């Protein structure tokens, strides 16, 4: 079973051969490292850029202008902020040019806390990204979804942002990527670079197949009828765990993995809330003008008379950074007990 870093690699390899992906680049993305999380290791078109985020995004825009497909990486989302106006321009190019020029480019970047990454390796970007009109934004919670979402991004004619939950890069899923060897050691021997001298190493790619996760299509990961929990990325797995724990206490929690932040699967959210009457939105970006607030707003506007309790947003604290000490990180981003408490509180509310 592939981990998420391997799934990303497999998707890039598939896209090189089937979608004419011509460039995968960013800091340390090429040989010998293949990315700080090894997510680009062995990828044929991967190359090392200068240490210059604006140069990376600008280059990607230029490559996309010619119609060539590329995937550009910003090593950590914490360093993407100085490119925000370029991201805005990439998102508005089609619109500003009256539909004449699309930019088929994908930017991928690791996001979020969970690895004790301190102030500048823990930032989230989903709330910021949701304000970049013209971009499609996704965040997987499993390797299979990472594979399917990244392929959808590369294939799409619009700029796409693939947010990699960095704490999940070594986490394995429960479903195989089509064509992936069942034994994880076999896959490792095929596509993981050896420790030490890699100068003569080449990956032996398995015959993987196309698998696309469409934009705007969520996934119900736990079924329930008492409360809906909507999340994505790393926190989706925490929500699953909490739902399982709470089921032993008699709670029936429906968990939705949004997968696609923009466009998002409102039909799935709506249908679930109409059933449960209660909803908790969970993510780790900071809480003020969080993307979940938009979802909560829409819930109130469109489903007010279906609600049995006030919608709740569980998000990161609105502090300038995530401190390194575990006490600081844990107090800054939602933990399982925070999610459990919120679910219980919403379930306890009487209209």
């Amino acid at each position, binding site marked *: 079973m592939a981990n998420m870093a391997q799934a990303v690699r497999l998707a890039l390899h598939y896209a090189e051969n089937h979608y004419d992906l011509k460039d995968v680049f960013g800091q340390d993305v090429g040989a010998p490292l293949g990315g700080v999380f090894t997510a680009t290791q062995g990828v044929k078109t991967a190359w090392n850029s200068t240490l210059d985020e604006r140069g990376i*995004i600008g280059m990607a825009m230029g490559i996309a202008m010619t119609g060539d497909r590329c995937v550009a990486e910003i090593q950590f989302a914490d360093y993407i902020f100085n490119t925000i106006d370029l991201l805005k321009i990439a998102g508005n190019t089609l619109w*500003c040019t009256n539909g004449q020029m699309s930019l088929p480019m994908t930017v991928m970047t690791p996001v979020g806390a969970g690895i004790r990454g301190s102030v500048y390796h823990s930032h989230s970007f989903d709330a910021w990204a949701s304000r970049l009109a013209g971009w499609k934004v996704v965040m997987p919670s499993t390797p299979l979804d990472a594979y399917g979402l990244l392929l959808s991004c590369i294939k799409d004619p619009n700029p796409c942002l693939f947010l990699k939950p960095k704490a999940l890069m070594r986490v394995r899923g429960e479903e195989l990527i089509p064509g992936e060897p069942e034994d994880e050691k076999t896959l490792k021997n095929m596509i993981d670079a050896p420790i030490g001298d890699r100068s003569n190493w080449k990956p032996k790619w398995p015959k993987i197949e196309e698998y696309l996760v469409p934009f705007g299509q969520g996934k119900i990961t736990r079924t329930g009828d008492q409360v809906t929990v909507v999340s994505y990325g790393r926190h989706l797995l925490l929500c699953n765990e909490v739902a399982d724990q709470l089921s032993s206490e008699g709670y029936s929690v429906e968990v939705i993995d949004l997968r696609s932040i923009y466009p998002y699967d409102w039909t799935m959210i709506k249908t679930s809330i109409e059933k449960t009457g209660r909803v908790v939105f969970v993510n780790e970006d900071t809480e003020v003008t969080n993307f979940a607030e938009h979802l909560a707003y829409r819930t109130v506007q469109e489903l007010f008379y279906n609600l049995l309790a006030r919608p709740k947003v569980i998000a990161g604290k609105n502090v300038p950074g995530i401190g390194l000490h575990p006490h600081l990180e844990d107090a800054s981003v939602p933990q399982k007990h925070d999610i459990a408490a919120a679910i219980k509180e919403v379930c306890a509310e009487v209209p």
Partner: protein
Amino acid sequence: MAIKKKKTQSKTKPKANQLRKTLGLPSDILLQMHDYMVKSRVLEERLIKIYRAGESFFWIGGPGEEAWGVPLGMLAYKGQGLNYDYLHLHYRCSPTLVAMGLDMVDSVRLMMNRSTDKSTGGRNFSNHFCIPEWNIAPVTSPLEVQYPIACGTAHAQKRSKSKGISIVTGGDAGTAEGDFASALILASRKNQELPVLITVQNNKWGISTSYDGQHGETHIADRAKAFNIKSTVINGNDPIESYLAIKDSMDYIRKTGKPAFIEAHVSRLYGHSSASGANPIKEERDPVKDFENKLLKAGLIDQKMIKEKWEGYEAEGIKAAELARTESVPMPESIWDHTYVNNENADWRKF
């Protein structure tokens, strides 16, 4: 009288012939340059008149850059795709586009925010062109972002082994942006040099801020030298000097695949934009008038031809404005158009 006249002719004719020989370019090119320069000037002055008449919200453009922009447009290899030159222009680019064949009415449509404006559909300021059929990348208001983007198109051109090159233009003030340095670095990496012509039109102003207080370098072109980029400083108010320098640089890039840099000193004849009044700045050299006098002295044109040319383009400009006035404007419901390719997912209310 007749004898006297003959004497005068015999005195001036050899002088004119000699001048023609020293001009350095064939007569047909000189006359063509003059024609485009006049057309471009008349067009810009028409745009200013449209602004003054209250038929547009804002004017920004390129009077004063004709002697640089026209030769650039004449020498660019015009067409669509990697085999042709990509042009990443700034908003003083009308001389270049006129020389490439821009119809006056298309500039006027953009100025008057008509829905018939092909470049932006009435969404953006004057001279913010996008013409994919000629590889004209979208002109953006944020300064200097076009420089690393140009490296992206050049990268794709290099990979495709085409003879097409990328060309980028911008002002002197914008060179303070980091994106300018990004482009110098990206274009000149050892053994990965890019076929890009990096240019700066130095008019010695950034809106109201003088060049003199903001630069420590002797020439902006010296910065390119530090990256081993072939660089030249020219009088961009002389179309012959511009033509020869641009041609020389383009030939070098097409032959070697390496970048070249031109700093062209130009005038800014009507100030920064309508925000600063768009009034004629009498202290600035007028490159169109200077060139016209040169051609007069060389006997290549006469006053009658000059008068007819200016009046002909003036009539064309008036006709263009009259036509644009009758054309439709963008409708409110069109705001969602082209957010994404095929207009999908534009309005979240409709997910």
